[in-house]
């Protein structure tokens, strides 16, 4: 009885032509609404850049010199590294004394997803173990893996056998 009620009274295709037409959907989803949605998305994306400008204007980022002692050079043999914090306690950094005798320092939060970056002595490279991101030890630029931006470089100075962090550059090289 139920089956008979729900079946169309004829199997003819010509009569059942309009069975695939859904009026409510046709009214809601059509080319006009697609264009309006695209325009709305475009405007929303354009305006969503404004908070970044406002934040850039409002925030006071460090521009005065910030000199901090890291360690004594004698305590850092070649081919080793030490962790410190610069310019604030929340921002961890890494000072590397390379095998060639150079001092390289970077903030060691991976530019991919902020995992800590470590110094690999064997290959003289900076490695992020989370997603196997590799950074060049000499300039902090990504050489493999997902990171796209270089590590912020910390300028160091040696005075009287002590290593100091003096400045930071976000974009370099």
């Amino acid at each position, binding site marked *: 009885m139920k089956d008979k009620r729900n079946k169309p009274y004829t199997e003819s295709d010509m009569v059942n032509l309009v069975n695939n037409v859904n009026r409510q959907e046709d009214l809601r989803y059509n080319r006009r609404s697609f264009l309006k949605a695209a325009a709305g998305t475009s405007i929303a994306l354009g305006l969503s*850049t404004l908070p970044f400008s406002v934040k850039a204007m409002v925030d006071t980022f460090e521009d005065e010199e910030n000199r901090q002692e890291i360690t004594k050079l004698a305590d850092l043999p070649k081919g080793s590294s030490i962790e410190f914090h610069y310019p604030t306690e929340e921002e961890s950094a890494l000072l590397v004394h390379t095998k060639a005798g150079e001092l390289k320092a970077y903030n060691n939060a991976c530019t991919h997803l902020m995992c800590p970056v470590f110094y690999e002595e064997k290959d003289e490279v900076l490695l992020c173990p989370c997603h196997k991101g590799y950074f060049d030890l000499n300039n902090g630029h990504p050489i493999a893996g997902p990171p796209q931006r270089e590590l912020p470089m910390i300028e160091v100075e040696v005075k009287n056998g002590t290593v100091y962090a003096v400045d930071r550059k976000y974009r370099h090289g």
Partner: protein
Amino acid sequence: MGNKICWIVILLTLAINVMLLQWTINAYLGHEFERVFLYSLLACGSASVTLITVLIWRKKEYQ
């Protein structure tokens, strides 16, 4: 401005705004604030173009 041109302009500005948003975020994370302002300004300009185009399209479509 024909309807077809309105379509092209709107879809083009959509693609442009997607790119500008990504560049803005990248510039902000890299502390390149002049670029943040520039890209933001361009994005707002592009959004204005989209809005004007939508109004022109609406007038033509529903007349």
